[in-house]
């Protein structure tokens, strides 16, 4: 049973490469500076384990792509492992692993993130490797050809072939008609296949520049020494000269409910409501996040208790806002139990949302919510790599890394009235896309 839950949760969570900003067990101290070429640098020292994380977040995601060239940002995430002027093809990861480190990368609609965690005596190696990537990565035909094939297989494995794997693709193309959030990071493989090598070079020269990135060095470091090393490897990287494409598209309100049915290779029907939401780091966003916990956080949450335990209509329920930088959607969903009509299941979901709209949350339940956030936020940010990621995200999205220490405060400022208000304002039919995932007949 728990195995199944894991699968279902995994398929929901796999949709997002950005974790919720879950800040601070107490204060995370850090210092920051900007090099002349525009590279912003954040240093965080914690000497309790002899490891160091070197991470770079580039301010480029699928929302910076052209509509006929979707999937580029993610494709670069693959390409950046191919090699650089001084690192032969296929050797990049070897340097890290030979030093006993680990590395990976991920792409979201908003940004691309590369990170490596090394034994702390290998800090300089990490800086050399990441700076190679920024200065002169190999964007050549061999690498492009190989990664084209790999990305096609990734699309099949993680989206087409994975049950419910197309959720975000199907949701976003209906929730947005103008804004680039209407396509997802994997994009349309045909765009990648059709792209010429020069297009990849131009993309690289435009976005992989110091003035479009933040470098985080966190862990067992000496700040002064780390600063000198950062300067050594990054100071002479030239500022990018191309214009950084920034869309100025504001998505109009949805205006009317959009409903659709997707027939997929699945067995358990899924009812999904995607409500359009405000941007992250706004009071309404925090309130919507808490509403999600009220509905689905823990077995005493409202949707769980009613739909899973009492009515036994659902196998699993959830509600959370997708942590995108710009206004996006909140996903509220239920996997139906056997023999349950999806329409009845949806009606039962709607009842619970209506109750939130009509009735103020009781004091005791609100206190429970606050306790849940206190536990979650204090318990988060434990690992060095997590902290590096959260610092980079806060800087890239909001230009303020210190937000990582203010999260508990932000959630505690939300009132019962706020939660009722966001339910009334955003959780309404004309602001949502409703998708039924149903089993394909043969």
């Amino acid at each position: 049973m728990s195995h199944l839950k894991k699968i279902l949760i995994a398929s929901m969570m796999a949709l997002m490469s950005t974790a919720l900003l879950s800040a601070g067990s107490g204060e995370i101290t850090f210092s920051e500076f900007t090099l002349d070429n525009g590279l912003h640098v954040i240093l965080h020292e914690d000497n309790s384990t002899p490891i160091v994380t070197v991470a770079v977040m580039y301010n480029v995601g699928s929302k910076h792509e052209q509509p006929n060239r979707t999937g580029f940002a993610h494709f670069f995430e693959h390409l950046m492992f191919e090699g650089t002027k001084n690192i032969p093809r296929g050797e990049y990861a070897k340097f890290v692993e030979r030093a006993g480190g680990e590395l990976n990368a991920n792409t979201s609609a908003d940004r691309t993130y590369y990170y490596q965690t090394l034994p702390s005596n290998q800090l300089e190696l990490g800086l050399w490797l990441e700076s190679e990537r920024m200065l002169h990565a190999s964007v050549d035909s061999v690498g492009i050809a190989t990664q084209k094939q790999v990305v096609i297989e990734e699309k099949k494995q993680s989206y087409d072939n994975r049950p419910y794997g197309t959720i975000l693709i199907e949701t976003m193309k209906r929730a947005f008609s103008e804004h680039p959030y209407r396509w997802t990071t994997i994009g349309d493989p045909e765009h990648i296949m059709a792209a010429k090598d020069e297009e990849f070079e131009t993309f690289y020269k435009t976005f992989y520049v110091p003035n479009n990135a933040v470098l985080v060095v966190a862990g067992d470091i000496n700040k002064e020494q780390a600063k000198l090393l950062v300067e050594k490897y990054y100071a002479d990287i030239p500022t990018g000269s191309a214009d950084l494409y920034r869309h100025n598209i504001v998505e109009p309100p949805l205006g009317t409910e959009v409903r659709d049915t997707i027939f997929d290779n699945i067995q358990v029907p899924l009812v999904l409501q995607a409500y359009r939401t405000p941007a992250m780091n706004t009071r309404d966003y925090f309130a919507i996040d808490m509403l999600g916990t009220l509905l689905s956080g823990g077995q005493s949450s409202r949707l769980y208790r009613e739909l899973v335990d009492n009515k036994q209509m659902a196998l699993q329920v959830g509600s959370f806002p997708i942590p995108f930088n710009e206004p996006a959607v909140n996903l509220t969903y239920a996997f139906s139990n056997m023999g349950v009509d999806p329409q009845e299941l949806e009606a039962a979901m709607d009842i619970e949302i209506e109750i939130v709209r009509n009735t103020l949350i009781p004091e005791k339940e609100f206190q429970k919510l606050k306790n849940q956030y206190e536990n979650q936020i204090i318990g988060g940010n434990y690992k060095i790599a997590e902290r590096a990621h959260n610092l980079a995200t806060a800087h890239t999205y909001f230009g303020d890394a210190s937000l990582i220490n203010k999260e508990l405060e932000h959630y505690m400022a939300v009132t019962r009235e706020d939660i009722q208000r966001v339910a009334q304002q955003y959780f309404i039919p004309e602001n949502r896309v409703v998708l039924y995932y149903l089993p394909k007949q043969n």
Partner: protein
Amino acid sequence: MRHVISTLLLCLFTTGLMAQLDRSTPPEAAPAPQINIGEYKKFTLKNGLRVFVVEDHKLPMVAYSLTLDVDPVFEGDAAGYVSLAGDLMRSGTTTRKKAEIDESIDFIGATLSTYSKGIYGRSLKKHNETLLTLMADVLLNPTFPQEELEKSLKQMETGIQAQKNEPAAIANNIASVLRYGQADPYGEVVSEEHLANITTDHLKTYHKTYFRPNAAYLVIVGDINLKEAKKQAKKYFGKWEKAAVPNHQYTNWPAYQAPKVAIANRDGANQSTIMVTHTIPMTPGHPNAIKASVMNQVLGGGSFNTRLFQNLREDKAYTYGAYSRLSSDKRIGYFSASAQVRTSVTDSAVNEILYEMERMQTELVPADDLELIKNMMTGSFSRSLEDPQTIANFALNIERYNLPADYYRTYLEKVAAVSAEDVMAMAKEYLKPEQAIILAVGEADKIEEVMRGFSPAGEVTRYDFYGNKVSGAVEVTDVTAEEIIQRYINAIGGLEAIQDIEDVTTSATASIQGMEFNMVTKQKAPNKLLVETMMGHNVVSKQVFNGEKGKVTSPMGEQELEGEMLEQMKEGSVIIAETNFLNEGFTIELQGVETIDNRECYKLIVTRPSGNESTAYYGVADGLKYREVSSTPQGNMVTNMKAYEEVDGYMFPKAISQSVGPQTFEVTINSIEINTGLGDELFEE
């Protein structure tokens, strides 16, 4: 003087800043940092509960995990009850309903989960006592309410439905069944029928029998000291009553003498999930464990630089990822290598996995590669120490598996000592490509034929989600082997007509790995044969046999047929072999009905006077032959006949596919001519 000094300073300053950085080589590492493994403390309660404490004061939180150390239980008809017993412990106690437990846990923002071999709880330190009160209650007083069982059964049934479409779930089920057998706890797959047999008594009995302090460990990690931990352990778990816990031994695991090839269908799959797996005698802390783990890391242990990842993803782009795993277990461990690949490269990808396994056994790992893997393992070990739970796990493992007390303190030294020779020895000992289960889940009809080549006997077995065989040979009693042969002879034209055949000339096109060949085959009664293979107009190979002797000419030279090959040629060159099957010296045995390419066929084993055996499949509906599996010196050859067509009143297959090992020939017959008066001289050397 002052001027000199400032110039000097300026020089130093500018040199420091302006020196051209040499980026062409990686920087040297600084001196290696000290790696410290945190401490743990332990004590035992009077009832036998062993408690470990790891202090970590970074966060004001404490985690409690209770783990049972009991043998796996074979569940039989009610498979699934063990996991349900675990799930339902927190679904009601003598004093609390499930809703109250949920509410109390969520109110303190805590986690409390129960499973068949333990309980885990974690909360802020200030909510400790509330958490422990609930944890002890679900441990000591669960009631397993009937309505909660029904609810969970319904969810599990839905869960089984969902998993039926998970390629990985299908593959894992089949792999478990084939590795351990259905009579082993590890080989049990829960089905809807099993669920129907589960009662609350099953759950109560399991809980009462196995949840005993003398068979359990409690691990406490977090913002707590030894004194506090002792007080809490006594208060909440001291009254837990001990009792003898039964032991179980099951060791009847299947062994395979040759690769066992299995496939399963997933409708609409556009990829195949492939797996090569087998059991290994590997227990946790085994003297070979670290060496074998290094070997597995080189082969496919979850990094960019493994053989499988580099070969299947970076070199061939067959897949998004390919990995291997070597898992130890107190009873029996397993090895598996797997990937999800596009359907068209299913067999090629399996081949590459087998190739890489064999390469581990025959080539020494280059020093650089080995160094890299060892450093990775060292790094991964060091990073894991960031989490205090790791220290707790170390303590638990030392205790549970009777490891030396310094097992983890000396782990890095042991990794450093592993040599390339060790790695090769481990590959020879623990990788068994020749006795592995070779499994593919995907579009079964498309992959069945290509998978056949991996079985020396040409046997592919289809399984369903539960690991049960799909349409194996079904016994038949209404027909005899002789009748099937007669029906075949009648179906292709009748005995008299066949006896009129003097000679046959067949012209065909064959393709192998994208290359095309033309093949002209001339046969003359009773058993003369000439096969010429041409590429363009050049003859690349020629096989000739005059009934008594013959030879093969190929670019590799000329070879006179002798011994076994000559015998096979004598028996195999008969135009319609079946005309001899009813003669003395031949035995034919009916094996039953099997489904071959969606067609029901009778399966016959034919033994020739020489002792050579082959298996042939004849359609139940039309009597025609659709498959033949025969042994050749290169391995078993599987021939599939497709698309029969009438030629001068005789039925001949128009297309044939033939595979030996991983090679498959697709043969299209362009023309068949009968009785053109071929002279005997054609068949002389």
